[in-house]
């Protein structure tokens, strides 16, 4: 039983476990138990608590909490932000990965580092950058204000912050993949008379589609779940600029536990769905993914 449960988590098939080298049984079961305990304590238990808390007063209260207009607005806003940020980063990510993997130019190393920036700075700082850029005392703020464009404490600011924070996911997934694949497939297509666009569509895209899908899944999960950066630029206007994570915090601070955990449940479900899709893809297309990665 434990054997079955742990084998996939160890990153391979049961062969890995069976091909066990020289460790004694004791050490092996000890390690398995330890990882299980860790996963249980830090992942399963919190998740279980979130779900039980949300359903403490029954499904009726749960759905009522979600149907609350402000909560509903937060859900819609989160979906909207993700619907804008993910496609943008899909395009940015492909463009950046393409430039880095397939061309030689000055400042390439710098660009590579820059792409990682959103991962290496605290999300709160990322948010603050936008406040400094668009705030009322900034350079751009007054000009935008006089033209009636509101960025900060409004949807555009939230989208910008989300785009910034989730930028690396697609690019980082694609860069090593594209570097490994090199340029000869594209050159072959061009030499056969394909246009740049045809080459991208028929050759490059199919070669990177699995990596791209991973990147988009992760990007989407983060876009919907981002708290820090969005919290700084949102202004927490109820029913207007609260995303789901912010709504969870507000409800929780108001001791509305059912509401807070109900929204949290949705976020947790998103994470689970992401994981399930990812595993399904890996399971179903493992051969093709491996083929696309080798070479």
């Amino acid at each position, binding site marked *: 039983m434990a054997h079955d449960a742990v084998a996939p988590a160890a990153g391979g098939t049961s062969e890995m476990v069976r091909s066990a080298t020289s460790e004694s049984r004791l050490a092996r079961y000890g390690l398995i138990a330890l990882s299980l305990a860790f996963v249980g304590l830090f992942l399963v238990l919190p998740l279980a608590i979130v779900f039980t808390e949300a359903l403490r007063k029954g499904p009726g209260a749960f759905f009522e909490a979600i149907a609350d207009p402000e909560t509903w607005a937060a859900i819609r806003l989160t979906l909207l932000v993700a619907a804008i940020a993910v496609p943008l980063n899909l395009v940015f990510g492909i463009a950046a990965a393409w430039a880095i993997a397939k061309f030689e130019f000055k400042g390439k190393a710098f660009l590579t580092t820059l792409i990682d920036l959103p991962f290496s700075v605290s999300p709160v700082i990322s948010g603050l950058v936008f406040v400094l850029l668009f705030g009322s005392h900034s350079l751009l703020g007054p000009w935008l204000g006089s033209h009636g464009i509101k960025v900060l404490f409004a949807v555009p600011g939230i989208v910008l912050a989300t785009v910034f924070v989730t930028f690396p996911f697609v690019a980082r997934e694609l860069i090593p993949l594209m570097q490994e694949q090199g340029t*000869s*497939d594209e*050159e*072959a*297509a061009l*030499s*056969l*008379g394909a246009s740049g666009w045809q080459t991208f569509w028929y050759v490059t895209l199919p*070669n990177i589609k699995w990596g791209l899908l991973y990147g988009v899944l992760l990007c989407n999960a983060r876009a919907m779940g981002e708290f820090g950066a969005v919290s700084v630029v949102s202004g927490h206007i109820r029913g207007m600029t609260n995303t789901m994570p912010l709504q969870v915090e507000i409800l929780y601070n108001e001791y509305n536990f059912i509401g807070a955990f109900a929204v949290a449940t949705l976020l947790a479900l998103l994470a689970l769905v992401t994981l399930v899709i990812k595993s399904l893809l890996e399971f179903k297309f493992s051969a093709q993914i491996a*083929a696309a990665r080798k070479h």
Partner: protein
Amino acid sequence: MEVRVQDIRKDFGRFPALDKVSLDIRSGELIALLGPSGSGKTTLLRLIAGLESPTDGTIFFGDDDASKKTVQQRNIGFVFQHYALFRHMTVIDNVAFGLKVRPSSRRPAAADIRKRAEDLIELVQLGGLEKRYPAQLSGGQRQRVALARAMAVEPNVLLLDEPFGALDAQVRKELRRWLREIHDRTGHTTVFVTHDQDEALELADRVVVMSKGRIEQVGTPDEIYDTPNSPFVFGFIGQSNTLPVRVENGQLWLEDRSIGLSAPGEPEGPAELYFRPHDIDLLDGCGGCLAGVVTLSRRVAGTRHVELDIAGSTRRIEIELPSDVAATPGTRIAFRPNRWRLFRS
């Protein structure tokens, strides 16, 4: 189609990968670019293809200046060293790709494309494997798909970069013969890169020997082998021996001994003597000869390869003798090259 390369120069940064290279490729010929690693073979091929643009110089396809044309407009067929097959497409889709991506005005009907791809697959002897993916083929089969794909667009010129480089010796030999047959049947002007001289000499109508970004010699395999025009070509193609000699009164001298070779018209002074191991005559007596003591003797198939320490030189010389000549280590052997060349540094 005839391809003329004129005074091409290609710099990578400050490094000149090709310098003043000119080459006329005749229509319908099978020509080999041969040279050591880094000599610029791939670069020249990519320049002809339009995958790289020259720093200086012009390339003509027939009478058209191709230098200004993109790779798509040149209509070439390029076979990459590692095939570069589209891994998510079946064999037939790979072969048909070049026709499918044509603008609708020039694209054949779907049925014609299919027919043409099938014919080509038949030509490269892969009938029955149309539905396979590249990952399900052997190296030699992939190579043939790559060739069929390149030929599908009826290219002006077919360019192959080390087409057999990644295959084992046995398959190489088969494919070599087979490529020659295909070429004779289809008549495509073909340029292929190799650093295997056997491949170049056996397969090509003409061989281009390259070194350090320059063309050393262009000629038929026989010309290249029999009359190399530079020390590099002499040393690079086949086996060769060199000895430091002196020209005096129209005679060749090794230290204070006459070799028995006359070089009328050669200027006096030091020179390098080049000759091939099999281009020698054994002598009984030595009235002007090269004489040496056998240090190593091994039988290779029908001939005996003998290494000699030559009196008057510290260099080792290798000669080939009939296998029935007894040449045990320690034996003294006198001989004289019957074909040779002098080069001066």
